[in-house]
C-alpha cells in the first residue's frame, strides 16, 4: 500500500506554456530625480509660482504582458519551477510654470523587461511557494521641453537643460513567489528586491547632445551648481544616477495555459 502510494505520488507531472498578464507595483528606493526637482524649484524660487511636485515613489508602477513556461512534478508535495518573461511600460508628465507663463515639461517614458526564474514546491497540485531570481532591464526616458507662451513646444538647444535624457538600469533581483494553480489558470504573486549585481554606474544622460552643449550632458541633481558653476559639479553626487531608478516590486497577475500537458 505504502509503495503503491509512493509510486502514485510521484507520477503527477505537468508542463504548460502560458500567456501572462500582471500588475507591477514598483517602489523607488532612491530619489535622485526629486533632488533635481527640488533644486530646480529652489533655483527659480520667486519666479516659479507653480513649481515641480516631487515624484511619488510608486509612479513607475504599470501592467505587464508576457509569457511563461511552467513545470510541476510530484504530489502531494512536488517540485515546481517556471520561467517567465514580461514587458511593461508607463509614461507620465510633470510640469512647472513660471510667472511669465513659460512651462517646463518633464515627460517620463519607462519601459521594463523582466526575465524571471522561480523554483520551489507545489502542494496538492494547487499551491506553490518559490524563490525567484529576475533579470530586470529598465529603460527610462525623460524629456525636458519648454512650452512657450503661445503654446509652442520645444526640445531644441535654445537652453542647455532641454533634451531627451535616458538611463538604462539593469539589476538582478531576488525574491519570493507564491501561486495558485487552478486548471489552466495560474495566479502568481511575488515580491522582489534589487541587488547591485549586473547594475551599471551610468547616469541619466542626454540621448544625443549637440556640440553647442557646454555644460554636462547628464541631468544634474545639483541644478544650482550646474547652472552657475558647472566646472565645480561634484562628479560623485551631482548627477541623477541610473541606479536611482531601481525599485522593489510586487507583482500580482494571472496566467492562462494555452498549451498544457498533464501526466
Amino acid at each position, binding site marked *: 500500500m505504502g509503495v503503491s502510494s509512493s509510486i502514485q505520488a510521484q507520477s503527477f507531472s505537468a*508542463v*504548460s*506554456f502560458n500567456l501572462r498578464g500582471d500588475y507591477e507595483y514598483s517602489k523607488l528606493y532612491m530619489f535622485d530625480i526629486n533632488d533635481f526637482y527640488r533644486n530646480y524649484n529652489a533655483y527659480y524660487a520667486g519666479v516659479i509660482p507653480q513649481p515641480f511636485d516631487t515624484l511619488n515613489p510608486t509612479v513607475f508602477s504599470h501592467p505587464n504582458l*508576457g*509569457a*511563461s*513556461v511552467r513545470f510541476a512534478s510530484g504530489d502531494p508535495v512536488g517540485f515546481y519551477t517556471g*520561467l517567465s*518573461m514580461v*514587458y511593461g511600460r508607463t509614461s507620465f508628465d510633470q510640469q512647472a510654470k513660471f510667472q*511669465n*507663463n*513659460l512651462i517646463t515639461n518633464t515627460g517620463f*517614458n519607462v519601459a521594463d*523587461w523582466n526575465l524571471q526564474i522561480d523554483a520551489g514546491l507545489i502542494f496538492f497540485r494547487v499551491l506553490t511557494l518559490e524563490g525567484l531570481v529576475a533579470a530586470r532591464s529598465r529603460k527610462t*526616458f525623460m*524629456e525636458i*521641453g*519648454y512650452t*512657450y*507662451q*503661445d*503654446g*509652442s*513646444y*520645444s*526640445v*531644441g*538647444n*535654445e*537652453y542647455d537643460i532641454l*533634451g*531627451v535624457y*535616458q538611463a538604462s538600469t539593469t539589476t538582478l533581483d531576488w525574491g519570493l513567489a507564491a501561486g495558485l494553480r487552478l486548471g489552466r489558470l495560474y495566479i502568481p504573486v511575488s515580491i522582489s528586491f534589487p541587488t547591485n549585481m549586473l547594475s551599471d554606474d551610468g547616469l541619466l544622460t542626454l*540621448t*544625443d547632445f*549637440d*556640440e*553647442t552643449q*557646454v555644460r554636462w550632458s547628464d541631468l544634474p541633481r545639483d541644478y544650482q551648481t550646474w547652472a552657475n558653476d558647472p566646472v565645480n559639479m561634484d562628479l560623485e553626487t551631482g548627477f541623477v544616477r541610473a541606479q536611482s531608478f531601481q525599485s522593489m516590486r510586487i507583482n500580482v497577475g494571472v496566467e492562462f495555459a494555452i*498549451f498544457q*500537458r498533464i501526466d
Partner: protein
Amino acid sequence: MKSFLSVFMLLVVFLLLNSCADSQKKYIHRMEGTWNLAHEEIVVIMQNGTADTLSVKENVGMMLLEPTATVGGSNVFLDFSLTLVNSNFRWVALPFKCDDARKRVFVYNFFCNDIFGCDLVCTIEKDTPTEQRWSFIKSLGNGQHRKTTWVLVKG
C-alpha cells in the same frame, strides 16, 4: 515539451529583436533623398502669448540627405546638403541625424564650423514619409523668443 519550449524561445527572440528596433535607423531610412524646403515661417513669441509674424516664405530651398561619408562607421547619420534661395552660402555634405527618441533632429555645423555653438537642433513637430515639420527657437532676451518653422516636402 520540446514544442512548448520552442514556442517560448521563439517568443523571447521575437520580443528581444523587437526591443532592439532602432528609431534612428528607421528615421534616416525615411529621410534619405531630396526634400523641398517648401515653407518657412518666423514668428516672435511675446510674453503675453501672442506671436508676431516676422516672415512667411514658400519654396525656400532644397535639402539633400544622402548616406554619410563624413561620419565613418555610423548607420544613424546622413550627410545633408542645403541650398537656400537668395543665399550664396551652401551647406555641403555635413552630418545630420535624429536623436534616439526621435524627437529632435541635429543639423551639425549649420551656423559655423567651430566646436561650440554651431549646431542647429530642431524639434520634430510632424514626421511622415512625405512631410516633415521642424521648429527651432532662439531667445531674444526680455522674455521674447523667435521661432522658426520649416516644412519639408519629399521631392
